[in-house]
């Protein structure tokens, strides 16, 4: 073995499947044929439609994203990290690449020629299985990955449309037309016409024995095979396909296709031995699909005005409600809601630009606060800021004027959609938060280097920014400024830490819940300020101190922290759970009262929920200790 680079590479590969299956000699031979590539962040190795390369790839360092485009959305389907393979298409298919492979970090990639590896597949079924599975889970054809599923932990991957259908519930006709088997076809047809329905269930003491639909009338009566005076039991389809009450969209679709029917009978336990509850028609499926998030996003993109956007957002509320009832993990719902909200903001800006004419320079619109963290399920406050490219001093006034007008209009549209814009000052229409790039850099520098001085109160929510519209370069540059400042930011951490601990306590001295003592919300519990925000602040502070980029979501932040600091993993994981529990309570409350859900009436909670709420505060106490230990808080306490 005279090529020591090849030996080094085979040593590296031997830690990872499928290479660990190979003998040292084989691995060395493969390593000899490796070419090494460096790929910078955001560069691609192959794109959809590119001709197949004659090799596949292993990540030597860095991180890649494999994504595919469906319905004009880019969906992430695989995230190969160090030691993982990607780009296996040349092994299994002849047509062009169906996915994009893009670097998310600066990466080093080993390229292995297909011909060098192929001989080992034929002789080793384990390797073949591994590659096949890997290929299926990161390829585009939905038939290929049905059943294998996507990796979904933490709601990191964007749900595909078909997956949502598995938990999307159906609205159906709950008072179906019931007839007796001894009635004539004519009578039944008359009843169907009178009640404007396309089907009638034939029952015996409320048990389904058959069904007649428009199709039966057409194919059996209108063709003359039976007379209209024939008894309905002669032409009914029997037995009826029955389903239980909480059938999902996808199940209903499958059953109809399997049995080649257009209607399903809903009974209390899903068999034909229990009472009829309703009937699902094909049309119900079409309606259900209309409130599917994927469809909603498409509708948003086409919405002509604010009112149309509002209607779509209301439809989405049903989806959230249903999902919570079906106990879908809140992190998944958050991800979807984040996409929908983002689409709404984008459309609002699009509409405004159509009205005002295009912008004089490039700009970026950032969501901050709960939307920036992708935690906005309810109609809560909107928070945003706007950054535009630097312009010559004499033009600045004019340019700023344009963007202020733009921001005002966008915010007005979003207000019509339902997002409150009155109570908080953090909006892009405020001249303080609509500035040029350099001004923003100065602002962040000021916040981070001189926290807490004079009028320099930091709005911590500005650090949870997420690009909603515009030039991604501006976001990247801002990131750089923030992370450069973090290098030497003891004072800044201390400030954030003190702010975190300053939040009002949840309990009184006697371990009773601390409810509001006066004002409009007297005797209500402020779950936002006393429970949710302290966790949000703590998560932000801790992730920033670890210089973790790109994760804004509180739940994911805690999960990530647990991985980085195994010492405190339990605390972080409990905090993540607690955060989800609080958010769920708040969302339920908000949906029930059509409010922001900030205040909850403790008496209305079930006893078990109240106990859960009480114990969910335990990790907060521990978090406080962690923060006190980590950062020197004396500056600001």
């Amino acid at each position: 073995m005279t090529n020591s680079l090849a030996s080094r590479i085979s040593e590296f590969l031997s830690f990872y499947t499928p290479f660990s299956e190979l003998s040292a000699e084989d691995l060395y031979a493969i390593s000899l044929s490796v070419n090494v590539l460096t790929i910078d962040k955001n560069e691609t190795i192959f794109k959809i439609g590119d001709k197949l390369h004659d090799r596949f790839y292993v990540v030597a360092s860095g991180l890649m994203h494999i994504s595919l485009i469906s319905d004009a959305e880019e969906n992430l389907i695989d995230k190969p990290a160090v030691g993982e393979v990607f780009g296996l298409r040349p092994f299994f298919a002849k047509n062009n690449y169906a996915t994009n492979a893009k670097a998310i970090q600066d990466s080093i990639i080993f390229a292995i020629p297909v011909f060098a590896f192929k001989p080992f597949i034929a002789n080793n079924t384990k390797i073949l299985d591994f590659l096949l599975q890997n290929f299926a889970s990161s390829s585009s054809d939905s038939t290929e990955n049905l059943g294998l599923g996507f990796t979904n932990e933490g709601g990191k991957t964007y749900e595909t449309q078909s997956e949502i259908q598995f938990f999307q519930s159906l609205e159906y006709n709950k008072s179906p037309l019931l007839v007796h088997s001894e009635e004539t076809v004519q009578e039944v047809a008359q009843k169907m016409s009178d009640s404007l329905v396309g089907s009638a269930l034939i029952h015996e003491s409320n048990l389904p024995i058959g069904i007649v639909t428009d199709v039966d009338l057409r194919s059996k009566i209108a063709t003359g095979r039976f007379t209209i005076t024939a008894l309905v039991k002669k032409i009914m389809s029997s037995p009826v396909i029955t389903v239980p009450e909480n059938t999902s969209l996808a199940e209903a679709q499958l059953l109809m296709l399997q049995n080649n029917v257009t209607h399903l009978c809903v009974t209390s336990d899903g068999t034909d031995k229990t009472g009829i509850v309703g009937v699902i028609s094909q049309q119900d499926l079409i309606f259900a699909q209309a409130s599917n998030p994927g469809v909603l996003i498409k509708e948003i993109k086409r919405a002509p005005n604010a009112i149309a956007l509002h209607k779509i957002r209301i439809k989405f509320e049903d989806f959230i409600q249903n999902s919570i009832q079906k106990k879908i993990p809140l992190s998944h719902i958050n991800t979807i809601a984040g996409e929908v909200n983002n689409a709404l903001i984008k459309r609002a800006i699009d509409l405004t630009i159509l009205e005002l004419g295009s912008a004089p320079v490039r700009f970026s619109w950032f969501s901050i606060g709960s939307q920036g963290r992708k935690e906005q399920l309810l109609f809560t406050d909107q928070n945003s800021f706007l950054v535009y490219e630097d312009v010559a001093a004499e033009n600045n006034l004019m340019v700023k004027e344009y963007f202020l007008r733009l921001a005002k209009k966008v915010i007005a549209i979003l207000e019509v959609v339902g997002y409150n814009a009155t109570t908080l000052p953090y909006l892009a229409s405020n001249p303080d938060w609509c500035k040029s790039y350099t001004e923003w850099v100065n602002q962040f520098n000021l916040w981070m280097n001189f926290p807490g001085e004079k009028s320099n109160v930091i709005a911590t929510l500005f650090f949870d920014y997420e690009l909603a519209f515009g030039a991604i370069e501006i976001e990247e540059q801002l990131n750089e400024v923030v992370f450069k400042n973090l290098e030497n930011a003891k004072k800044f951490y201390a400030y954030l830490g003190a702010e975190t601990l300053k939040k009002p306590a949840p309990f009184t001295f006697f371990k009773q819940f601390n409810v509001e003592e006066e004002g409009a919300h007297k005797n209500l519990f402020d779950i936002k300020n006393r429970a949710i925000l302290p966790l949000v602040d703590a998560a932000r502070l801790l992730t920033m101190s670890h210089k973790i980029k790109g994760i804004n979501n509180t739940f994911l932040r805690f999960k990530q922290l647990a991985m980085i600091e195994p010492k405190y993993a339990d605390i972080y994981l409990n905090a993540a759970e607690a955060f989800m529990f609080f958010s769920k309570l708040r969302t339920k409350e908000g949906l029930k009262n059509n409010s922001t859900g900030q205040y909850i009436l403790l008496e209305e909670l079930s006893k078990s929920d109240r106990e859960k709420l009480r114990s969910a505060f335990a990790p907060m106490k521990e978090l406080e200790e962690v923060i006190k230990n980590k950062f020197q808080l004396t500056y600001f306490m």
Partner: protein
Amino acid sequence: MLDWLKNKKYPEFWNTYLQLQEEKSARYVTLSVQTTGLNPQKDVILTIGCVAVVNNELVIRDSFEIILLQYIYNHDNGFSNEFIIESKMPKSPQSEGLQKLVEYIGNATIIGHRVDFDLEIIYVGLEKMDCGKLRNEAFDLEIMFKKWKESSDDKKFTIEEIAQALKLPKNDTDSTIEEAYAMGLCFLKLKKYLRID
């Protein structure tokens, strides 16, 4: 030129090498040389590591490594040759090793780090074999890096510092071949940033 006028007789491999220089090559070769010191006349080469860059990729198969057996130098300075015996790398006496290096490099562009010194000490060796100077075009990573950084001061950068600034992962480079590999990665990045074709 002068050599040619004198009608000097070159070894066969050197003539082949000179012929190759007439064509330009798209191949680059990183060159890492470990020496006993910084005096080209008195010090000697211990090991050489190279790896080729073609089409913006490091080609593992096209790499080169050798230990030069410096019996005379070791003897004169009273060094033992223990580490040479330990290594699995191919070993050659100096002249044989340099011939292999010349054959390996061919007409590729050389990529080095403070490459002038490396070329100088190789030249001293080649001279003893009745050969001339290496004629290849040579790039220096430190100069490339400074050009990209647009820094004009006298600050020196080691390979490790350049690699770190280019956001390459840290690697132990305790042999010349590993250093050649690290240099290759740096070169791939700088080549792209400086738009060198």
